[in-house]
C-alpha cells in the first residue's frame, strides 16, 4: 500500500512501553513489545492487552435496522436480545466475503458493528450503497480507541478497574459511564481465551492502556494476536477470507442462516450447499519438526502434486509445532489426509486436523 499509514491514538504510549512498530493493514501498529512467545504465553496463562484502535465501529440505527441487517449479513440478527452480539459476515453478490465482523444489538432499533481495520471503507461503502431510508449509518471508527484484554485473568483485571460494573456474559455488550466518560465493553475476543474488548473516546485510549497494564495485563502486539487466533483456527480477513471465497468454503456455515429469508449472496450459498463444496479451508498440522509454515507456502500431496497454498501459517507457540490453514480441493479435506508443505524447497509432512488446533479452558457460556 502506497498510502500514508494511519496512526493509532495509542502510538506514543506503545513507543513508551518499548513496542516494535510495523505497518499492518494500512496502520502503524505494535507487532511486539518484548517477545511474541512471552506475550502469547501471557494471554494463554494470565492476561494481555492489545491495541485494537485500528478496528472499525459502525452504528446502524432505525426502525428498519433489524430487517435490513438480516438482508445484509449471513447470521440472523433477530436472534439477538438487547445486549447480545454475534459473529457474522458481510457478503458480495457472488457470496464472497467482504468482511467478517461482530454485530451487537444495543436496543430494538440500534446495532453496533466492530469490523476489520483494512475493511472499514469497503464495509461502509457497501452498506451505504444498500442503505434504505429508515436506516441511519454512522462510521464512528475515528471516535473510539479500542483495547482487547484477553486471558484467564481478564475478568479480574476488569473488576479491579470497574468494581461497580458487571462484565456482560459471552458475546454481550454493555455501554456505561465512568467518571463522566462513555465506555463500551464487549465480552469477546480473537484469542480463544476469556476476555473483553473495551472502547473509549480516542483521546482517553493511552490512559486506559496504562491503567490495564497497571492492573496486571501484559502489553501484547499483533504478532501474538496472530499466533493466538491461528491456534484457534479463527480466520483473518485478507489471509483466510476473501471476496472470491464463501463462508461455507471457509468452514463458517455455523454462522450462516439460510432459513431466515433472503440476504445478499444467499442464492450462491444455497447452491453450494445443495451441490456440495469443491474446496474447503482446512487446518494443517506438521507431523515432524520443521521450519515454521507461513502464508503462501505451497501445499502438495505426498507424491508432490501441488494442491493449494497456505492462507496462514505459524509455529504454534503453545504446541511448538507448525500449524496452518489452506483451501484444498474437497478430496484432500478429510481429517487425517496427509500432505506436505514446501518451505524453500524442503518438504515437511503435515496432515489435515480438526480446528481449533489448541483447546483453551475458556467457558463456552
Amino acid at each position, binding site marked *: 500500500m502506497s498510502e500514508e499509514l494511519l496512526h493509532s491514538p495509542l502510538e506514543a504510549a506503545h513507543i513508551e512501553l518499548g513496542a516494535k512498530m510495523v505497518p499492518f493493514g494500512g496502520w502503524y501498529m505494535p507487532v511486539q513489545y*518484548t*517477545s*511474541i*512467545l512471552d506475550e*502469547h504465553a501471557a494471554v494463554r496463562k494470565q492476561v494481555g492487552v492489545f491495541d485494537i484502535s485500528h478496528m472499525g465501529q459502525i452504528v446502524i440505527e432505525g426502525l428498519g435496522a433489524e430487517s435490513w441487517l438480516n438482508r445484509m449479513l449471513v447470521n440472523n440478527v433477530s436472534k439477538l436480545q438487547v445486549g447480545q452480539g454475534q459473529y457474522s459476515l458481510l457478503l458480495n453478490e457472488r457470496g464472497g466475503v467482504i468482511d467478517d465482523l461482530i454485530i451487537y444489538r444495543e436496543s430494538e432499533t440500534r446495532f453496533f458493528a466492530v469490523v476489520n481495520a483494512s475493511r472499514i471503507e469497503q464495509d461502509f461503502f457497501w452498506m451505504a450503497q444498500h442503505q434504505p431510508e429508515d436506516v441511519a449509518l454512522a462510521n464512528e471508527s475515528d471516535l473510539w480507541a479500542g483495547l482487547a484484554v484477553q486471558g484467564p485473568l481478564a475478568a479480574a483485571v476488569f473488576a479491579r478497574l470497574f468494581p461497580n460494573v458487571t462484565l456482560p456474559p459471552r458475546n454481550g455488550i454493555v455501554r456505561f459511564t465512568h467518571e463522566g466518560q462513555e465506555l463500551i465493553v464487549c465480552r469477546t475476543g480473537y484469542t480463544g481465551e476469556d476476555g473483553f474488548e473495551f472502547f473509549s473516546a480516542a483521546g482517553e485510549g493511552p490512559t486506559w492502556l496504562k491503567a490495564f497494564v497497571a492492573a496486571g495485563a501484559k502489553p501484547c502486539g499483533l504478532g501474538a494476536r496472530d499466533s493466538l487466533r491461528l491456534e484457534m483456527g479463527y480466520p483473518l480477513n485478507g489471509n483466510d477470507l476473501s471476496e472470491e471465497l464463501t463462508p461455507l468454503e471457509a468452514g463458517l456455515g455455523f454462522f450462516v442462516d439460510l432459513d431466515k429469508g433472503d440476504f445478499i449472496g444467499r442464492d450462491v450459498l444455497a447452491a453450494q450447499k445443495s451441490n456440495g463444496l469443491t474446496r474447503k479451508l482446512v487446518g494443517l498440522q506438521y507431523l515432524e519438526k520443521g*521450519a515454521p509454515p*507461513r502464508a503462501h507456502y505451497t501445499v502438495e500431496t505426498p507424491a508432490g502434486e501441488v494442491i493449494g497454498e497456505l492462507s496462514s501459517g*505459524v*509455529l504454534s*507457540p503453545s504446541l511448538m509445532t507448525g500449524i496452518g490453514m489452506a483451501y484444498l480441493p474437497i478430496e484432500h479435506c478429510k481429517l487425517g489426509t496427509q500432505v506436505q508443505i514446501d518451505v524453500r524447497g524442503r518438504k515437511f509432512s503435515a496432515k489435515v486436523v480438526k480446528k481449533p488446533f489448541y483447546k483453551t479452558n475458556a467457558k463456552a457460556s
Partner: protein
Amino acid sequence: MNIPADLRYNNSHEWVRLEGDIATVGITDHAQAELTDVVFVELPAVGRQVDLGDPTAVVESVKAASDIYAPISGEIVEGNPEVEADPALVNTDPYGKGWIFKLRVKDIAAVEKLMDAAAYQAMIS
C-alpha cells in the same frame, strides 16, 4: 549490548571467530535482540562452497524468516546441531553455544577486512 573484542563482524550482523583456517560464524547479540525468539534454524549443507554475502543459513522467529549471510568465502565444514535442536540458544548464547556454522576460509587475510568490535559498535549505535 555485548560485542566481544576478539571477534570480527560484518554489516549484516554476523560475527566470525577464526581458529587456524576455520571460521565459526553466528549472529550478534544485537541481531538476536532484533529478531527475538528464534524458533528455527536452517543449517547449510556440509561441503557447500559459499562466497562473501551468500545467503547461507536461515534463522526464523515466530513472525519472520531471516537469511544469514556468509561473512567470508569458503567451504562449509559443519553446522551446529545444537541450534537445530534448541534454536533459542541463538538468543541466550549468541557468541557461544548459539554459533551457526563453521567454514574453511579461502583467504585468511579477508577476515582482517571485516569490522572489529569498535567499528561494529559504531555501526549499530
